[in-house]
């Protein structure tokens, strides 16, 4: 959680840029989605990448009371507010949940009744971020998890990577003119976006945000 003097406010789905400067002037900058809703203190959720340069610092070194240089909010497209309507389909792969969680918090705080469905893919139950918070939503928000690598005993939910068939079972019917936000690693987003287009979703009503490395050349 960040205490940012004169923060101008933000929209759900926006991100901010963090800049780290070493004593010799060396700098590294990265973008992070804002995890909190408009009106809440600015917060980010950082996934530590083993080969990362900034995430290990933010998750291991940074102490309460340290200063951080940041800039934002940034981004005007991958954003949602109740005025945008729905029904909302949010599809998250791993840490792609962060901006979508901000949207769900905004939905709650604004008293919106736009129906929302979240499809959230994680490797294991321990990898699910905001688990308790997501379980605590009212019936206006349906949360569907898929655990792709390992499941706890007695798990009755999905156990595979999101594919066209899974999407077909979870996504809002096209006739309801849903608005979709998809966020996660690029191959996940590609599969999901293509799957939604195949279901008949209008491409202009599918907004995507991709992050993480691709492993491609």
């Amino acid at each position: 959680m960040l205490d940012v003097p004169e923060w101008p406010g933000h929209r759900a789905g926006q991100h901010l840029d963090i800049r780290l400067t070493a004593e010799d002037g060396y700098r590294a900058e990265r973008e992070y989605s804002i995890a909190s809703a408009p009106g809440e203190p600015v917060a980010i959720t950082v996934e530590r990448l083993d080969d990362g340069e900034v995430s290990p610092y933010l998750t291991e070194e940074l102490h309460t009371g340290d200063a951080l240089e940041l800039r934002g909010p940034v981004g005007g497209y991958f954003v949602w507010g109740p005025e945008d309507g729905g029904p909302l389909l949010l599809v998250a792969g791993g840490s792609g949940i962060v901006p979508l969680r901000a949207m769900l918090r905004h939905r709650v705080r604004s008293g919106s009744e736009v129906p929302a469905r979240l499809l959230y893919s994680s490797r294991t139950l321990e990898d699910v971020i905001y688990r308790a918070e997501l379980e605590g939503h009212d019936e206006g928000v349906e949360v569907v998890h898929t655990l792709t690598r390992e499941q706890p005993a007695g798990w009755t939910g999905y156990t595979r990577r999101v594919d066209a068939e899974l999407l077909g079972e979870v996504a809002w019917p096209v006739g309801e003119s849903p608005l979709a936000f998809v966020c996660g690693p690029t191959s996940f987003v590609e599969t999901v976006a293509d799957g939604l287009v195949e279901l008949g979703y209008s491409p202009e009503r599918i907004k995507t945000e991709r992050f993480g490395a691709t492993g491609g050349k």
Partner: protein
Amino acid sequence: MSFISRGFRGRRRDSEVDPSRVPPGQYVTDDFPVLSAGPTPHTPIEEWTFSIVAGDERKTWTWEEFRALPHETVTVDIHCVTRWSKLDTIWDGVSVDTLLEQVDHDAPYVLASSDGGYTTNLPIEDVTDGKAWIAFGYGGEMLEPEHGGPARLLVPHLYFWKSAKWVRGLGLRDENEPGFWETNGYHLYGDPWLEQRYAGD
């Protein structure tokens, strides 16, 4: 005194990379990240056309006609506004000069438009005199859809959002009309060496 992040050392990258090739705030990656605002379009090649529109004049090429044009292989560095830079990327494409030569034009700006509705604006000087291509090949292979195939605009001296994926046309314009990202908080011009990422930079 400028801001120092307590305890941050950073990971100094290969000394093989000449730092003068890396714009401020960027880091070099071997990866080729994919970023997009929406689903990847898949226009069948037999329906694909590329057009230059200048006032009432319109010149259109089919895929066969486009591929019959003189093209070149170029090696360039590319810089994404999200901060990754990739050096020595190899592209095959038709120079935008070759295409513009076929049309009488005199406008100061272009608006590139793509399948899916993406647009981006540029001054004409930034896509002429060997500075821009319509690229159909990357790394010696045909350009994949995820990276903008069958063809994308390639303008390496600006942030890579200006290199519109799935490009289908260039419209000559009298005004510098902001395109998609330019309307969504990003800089109108986008020079990575001046770190012109966002509107107002």
